[in-house]
């Protein structure tokens, strides 16, 4: 089972074409931005589509307000690496699943942020889309940023998740291809396999549990409700 947590289609109506391509590549699900009002849905042939929200706040307060509103409605919540305040807050907050490196912003992952994230199980997201689109010097700069960030995350014990960042179905890659891109980014083979398959799967499983009605906190859930006397 492999899941792509980073499909960035501009229109949720493209779900069917992404689903067809994902199925060809052996994926069992993908997370897409803009899935309306539900954390996940099941398409034909068992393909799972998960809702993803990207929080673009400039201050901690604005991000905090947004997450209160959307956490229960979305399966994946991510924050791009921006200012140090917002990034460190997001790294510490257990409601945030992914910290995404945005190549256009050129903000690298700091050691301190990675250590905070490793404690709260927030993962580093690497989107491969810029690597497919660019070449030469521009791609080399992104490779530098990605490779440094992957090393920082791995050294701090922060999980790294590889996603496509695809805006069209041909931007998707199979988990094997994704793992080989992971090796290109400085991971060893077994870690690259986990970054492409196991880590995304465990995030989905963890969040599925949180969405169950009896869930209170990690390790605490309501099994049976007593009656008031």
């Amino acid at each position, binding site marked *: 089972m492999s899941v792509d947590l980073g499909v960035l289609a501009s229109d949720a109506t493209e779900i069917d074409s992404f689903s067809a391509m994902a199925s060809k590549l052996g994926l069992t699900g993908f997370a897409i931005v803009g899935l309306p009002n539900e954390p996940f849905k099941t398409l034909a042939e068992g393909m799972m589509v998960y809702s993803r929200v990207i929080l673009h706040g400039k201050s901690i307060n604005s991000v905090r307000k947004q997450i209160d509103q959307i956490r229960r409605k979305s399966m994946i919540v991510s924050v791009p690496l921006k200012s140090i305040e917002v990034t460190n807050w997001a790294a510490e907050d257990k409601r945030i699943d992914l910290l995404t490196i945005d190549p256009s912003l050129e903000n690298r992952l700091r050691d301190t942020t990675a250590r905070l994230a490793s404690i709260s199980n927030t993962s580093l997201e690497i989107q491969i889309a810029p690597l*497919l689109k660019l070449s*030469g010097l521009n791609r080399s700069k992104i490779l530098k940023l990605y490779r440094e960030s992957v090393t920082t995350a791995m050294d701090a014990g922060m999980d790294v998740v590889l996603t496509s960042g695809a805006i069209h179905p*041909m931007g998707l890659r199979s988990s*094997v291809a994704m793992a080989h891109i992971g090796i*290109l980014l400085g991971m060893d083979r077994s870690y690259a396999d986990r970054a492409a398959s196991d880590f995304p799967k465990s995030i989905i499983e963890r969040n599925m549990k949180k969405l169950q009605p009896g869930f209170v906190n990690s390790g605490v859930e309501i099994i049976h409700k007593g009656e008031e006397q």
Partner: protein
Amino acid sequence: MKKVRKRYLLFKLHRDGSPIEEKHLSLTIWKSLLSLYGEIQASDSKLYLIDFDESLGEGILQCSLPSLQQVIAAAAVIGSISGISVSFEPKRTSGTIKGLKR
């Protein structure tokens, strides 16, 4: 001269448009390998496109064993060929062509 062990890679090239010509695919993988790993690694890869069905998009690549991972990574980061969006999917690797078909 020491004999270099070969590996064969069965792959499928998904595309969003008309069929990709074999020579264009081969050239694009070579260029990607050259761009990512440089001239020495590209020449040592002994990369050769043995077979490619243009309509199905399925084919077999041959390369040296030490460069297998690099060849797959170079092919996986190809986003388009001749203006057509593509997705390279490695299917299986083997030391013999016969092994790929098992």
